[in-house]
């Protein structure tokens, strides 16, 4: 009898918190869509921020995330392959733990770290500094995806390669990685989605810019940092632009995430 009552209370409480959580999420998304869409206009994709558009910010955001991927994906994959396929015992575990700690490091701390490491010595903010900060966020995610996807490859597949006279590295690169390819690619896509909307690591590394630029040695335009600036602006027009920018950024992240989920589902 008592168990039944407790059961019901727990059920009611967990339902309530689930509903509460979903309600807040819906509230945020609805507000974002309503306010974002009302300030949305196709000319936003044509003009740069200096002319009240978002073109340079969208392109800049992708370039920063793209540069971060160029740095972060190979490093993360190599480390992931090392700890799963080569590392035995101590070293592998040290890297795995370090990577887990890095994954839970607050992004603002990573921003501060890169500020001290790159921005201070070079004397100014730059696209490179921003990319490095994003790459540092990305690496542990790529490591852990690579590690766990490789762990799903059956051991017999490796043994079958070895039994044909292949060397270990041939087996890893011809067979094991190929088997885990879809999983690893999905993980990388989700890691990209994770960093493409980040603000804190860019705030004092690449900052943002009102102009279109491809020069990564200077302050670099990004949607997320500009949203932060525009939203705290006194002018209403700026705040409307911030809503439109937030809307676009959210849709971008959603689309990338859903693509990742879609690929995973199709695989199964």
């Amino acid at each position: 009898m008592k168990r039944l009552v407790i059961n019901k209370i727990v059920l009611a409480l967990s339902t309530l918190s689930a509903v509460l959580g979903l309600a807040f999420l819906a509230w945020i998304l609805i507000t974002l869509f309503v306010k974002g869409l009302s300030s949305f206009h196709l000319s936003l994709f044509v003009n740069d921020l200096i002319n009240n558009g978002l073109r340079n910010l969208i392109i800049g955001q992708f370039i920063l995330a793209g540069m971060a991927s160029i740095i972060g994906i190979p490093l993360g994959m190599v480390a992931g392959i090392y700890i799963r396929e080569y590392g035995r015992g101590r070293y592998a575990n040290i890297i795995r733990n370090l990577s887990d700690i890095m994954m839970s490091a607050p992004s603002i701390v990573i921003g501060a770290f890169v500020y001290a490491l790159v921005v201070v010595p070079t004397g100014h903010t730059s696209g490179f500094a921003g990319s490095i900060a994003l790459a540092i966020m990305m690496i542990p995610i790529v490591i852990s995806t690579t590690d766990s996807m490789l762990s799903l490859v059956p051991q017999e597949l490796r043994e079958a390669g070895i039994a044909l006279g292949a060397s270990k590295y041939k087996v890893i690169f011809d067979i094991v990685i190929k088997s885990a390819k879809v999983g690893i690619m999905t993980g990388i896509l989700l890691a990209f989605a994770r960093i493409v909307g980040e603000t804190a690591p860019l705030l004092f590394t690449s900052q943002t810019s009102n102009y279109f630029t491809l020069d990564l040695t200077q302050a670099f335009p990004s949607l997320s940092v500009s949203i932060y600036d525009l939203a705290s602006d006194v002018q209403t027009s700026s705040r409307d632009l911030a809503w439109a920018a937030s809307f676009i950024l959210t849709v971008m992240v959603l689309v990338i995430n859903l693509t990742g989920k879609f690929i995973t589902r199709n695989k199964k």
Partner: protein
Amino acid sequence: MTLMSIKKFSFTYPGADEPSLKNITLPIEKNKITALIGPSGCGKSTLLRSMNRIHDLYPGNKYDGKIELFNETSKKYENILDIKKENEFIELRQKVGMIFQKPTPFPMSIFDNVAYGLKIAGIKNKSELQDRVENALKGSALWKEVHDRLGKSAMGLSGGQQQRLCIARAVAVKPELLLFDEPTSALDPISTGAIEELLVELKKDITIAIVTHNMQQASRISDYTAFMYLGDLVEYDKTENIFLNPKEKQTEDYITGRFG
């Protein structure tokens, strides 16, 4: 003629107190099928996996005794337990291939699967590759089913076809000895029958050692049978003697189904 001669062989896994194989002496006769039978955990796989030293993928194993493989060029027996260098291991595994319980197709086309070992062995000539892939597939009774889709992924084949593909892949490199670890236990009876037929066909060119749980299978296809129990080799003889006229009580109990 004896192709491989296992002499006073013991094997201990890393961290284990007791050896998993104790003082095994067993010949593997050329162009014959030798079956390893015995209850689960008696060391059949461990013995089979010593014959191409696939154990060495994992560090810390302890080998004692000898496993001698006849070298066709020098006409001498060479102890494979002496092997230490990477290129010698590769050479050993090209001579002694292995088929696993679950089919292990590689995530590539049917053609590339069969060509994989050949490419590793250094064969680059396209027409030679094509000939040898075709011959291997014909030799594994798979050619008719796949000749019009060699470029398609091997993952689309049925379980039985995948297993025959793995056999074709192993046969393509022309090994002297092929090791099979319960190759049909994951397959339906029809696929199992096809593979048993194939093994009997293959022994004209290749020596075979097979681990099997299936008593009927051992008696149907093998020429020699070794019965193992708790890491010991209890009895080794011609298959008909083991099944009709075993010398040891333990062997008799096992094949009549009184335990295991």
